[in-house]
């Protein structure tokens, strides 16, 4: 088995907002439906809460923090699922069930196997 990180890109919304309760419930339903293949998951606060950290020069250099996401895009990274699957076809089949896949997009990336 291999692991894939399914990154969800959707509108940059605040999931606490009660307007999105129905959508959030869809994600929870997805989580229950695929609990056997989901190893970890997280939903993120909107990008307005993001902080980018950089260290100047080399390790130990000055820490520079800036407000906002690393990349400004129309669709933002709003969460992820760590999926276990036999191969990419299987991972894609699970990823296609994440609500973000029709509201936005899901990027599936293989996780480097730890040896």
């Amino acid at each position: 088995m291999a692991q894939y990180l399914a990154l969800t890109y959707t509108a940059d919304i605040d999931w606490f907002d009660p307007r999105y309760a129905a959508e959030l419930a869809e994600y929870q339903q997805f989580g229950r439906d695929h609990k056997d293949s989901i190893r970890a998951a997280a939903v993120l606060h909107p990008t307005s809460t993001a902080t980018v950290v950089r260290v100047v020069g080399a390790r130990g250099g000055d820490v520079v923090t800036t407000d906002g996401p690393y990349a400004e895009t129309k669709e933002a990274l709003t969460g992820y699922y760590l999926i276990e699957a036999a191969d990419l076809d299987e991972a894609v089949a699970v990823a296609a069930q994440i609500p973000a896949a029709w509201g936005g997009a899901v990027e599936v990336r293989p996780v480097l196997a730890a040896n």
Partner: protein
Amino acid sequence: MVDPSRTRLSETVRIEGARILATLVRTVGDLQLAEDAVQEAVLAALREWPRAGVPPQPRAWLTLTAKRKAIDMLRREGARAAKEREGADLMELSTPDTPPDSVVRDDQLRLIFTCCHPALAPDARVALALRTLCGLSVAQTAAVLLTGEAAMAKRLTRIRQKITVSRIPYRVPADAELPSRLAAVCAVVHALYTSGHAPLDGPALVDVDVCGEALRLARLLHDLLPDEPLPAAVLALLLLTEARRPARVDAAGDVVLLADQDRGRWDAAWIAEGRALLDASLRRTGAVADPYQLQAAIAAEHAAAPSYAGTDWAEIVRLYDLLLSVAPSPTAALSRAVAVAEALGPVAGLDALRAVPPGPRWHAVHAELLARSGRYRDAVDAATEALAGELTEPERRYQRRRRSEWEELAGS
């Protein structure tokens, strides 16, 4: 003296290599492993055949040996990282070699569909299929896909890496998945034909075996999905081009220019079939013609002309303009310049040529147009430039002959 078993081996690998690999990919479900195993089997043959003699069925011997090598490799890998590779691969190896249930009956065509996985970029699918399933070299693959050899080698490495780390399985697609893979499969078949019809270099102007295989695949593809306009257009294009192939070379294997071809040697039945397919394909698509339809329309225009002089060159230029607007390529731009020269004269042709990136065939066209405008000295130089690059042997002979004619006319 070369060992006869060695000649037999290289022949088997050249003619049957792609099929052996195709069988291996199907049984082991892993491209890299299949390639390594076939390579090991060839090495084994190099050791065994001179000693024990060429086996009665060389292809079967190589296939079976490669399968054993694959099992050995899986075992070795299994010992190193048992959890990494599942026993499923081995299970598949022990199952008989019957293809899974699919509407695609042909082994080779099914593998091309399998190779055209949607998780790979469209051009990556085509490159991979040409290199691994159609037996083209990296240089040939690069040439038909209009890129450099080094860039193609790097690209293929990256494609294989994605297949390995993402674990893209070699699974025959379900019938419902076929249409979404069709565009790439059509591109593979067309590029395969191109590699045979206009080889990079080598002893012959045309590789008849490769052209025949591409035509066979195009026909199978159209039979499989008869209502799809794309395979109909590809088959039309191949038929209309292949119909004229016998007249392109003379008995000595030398180039015969379109102007001098015996049009009686063109295959009238294939031309008629190609035209009918093109019409049917055009009826199924909307206002914008696709590149295959446009290329087929150009071929049909040539096929319909009663003579070289009677060709509607203005219409051919118009079709090339349309083709370049939907699918710009240096090859099409070069052909357009030739058509412009026929329609409007060599000076206009030279003018059109200026916007096209140079290559050996560009220099050959350049030389011809210079000669036609009476600039024989320049034509000789251009022919020398053409001869410095990669050309097939017949093209080389033709170019040398022309160059000496122009040298005389230049009065040197």
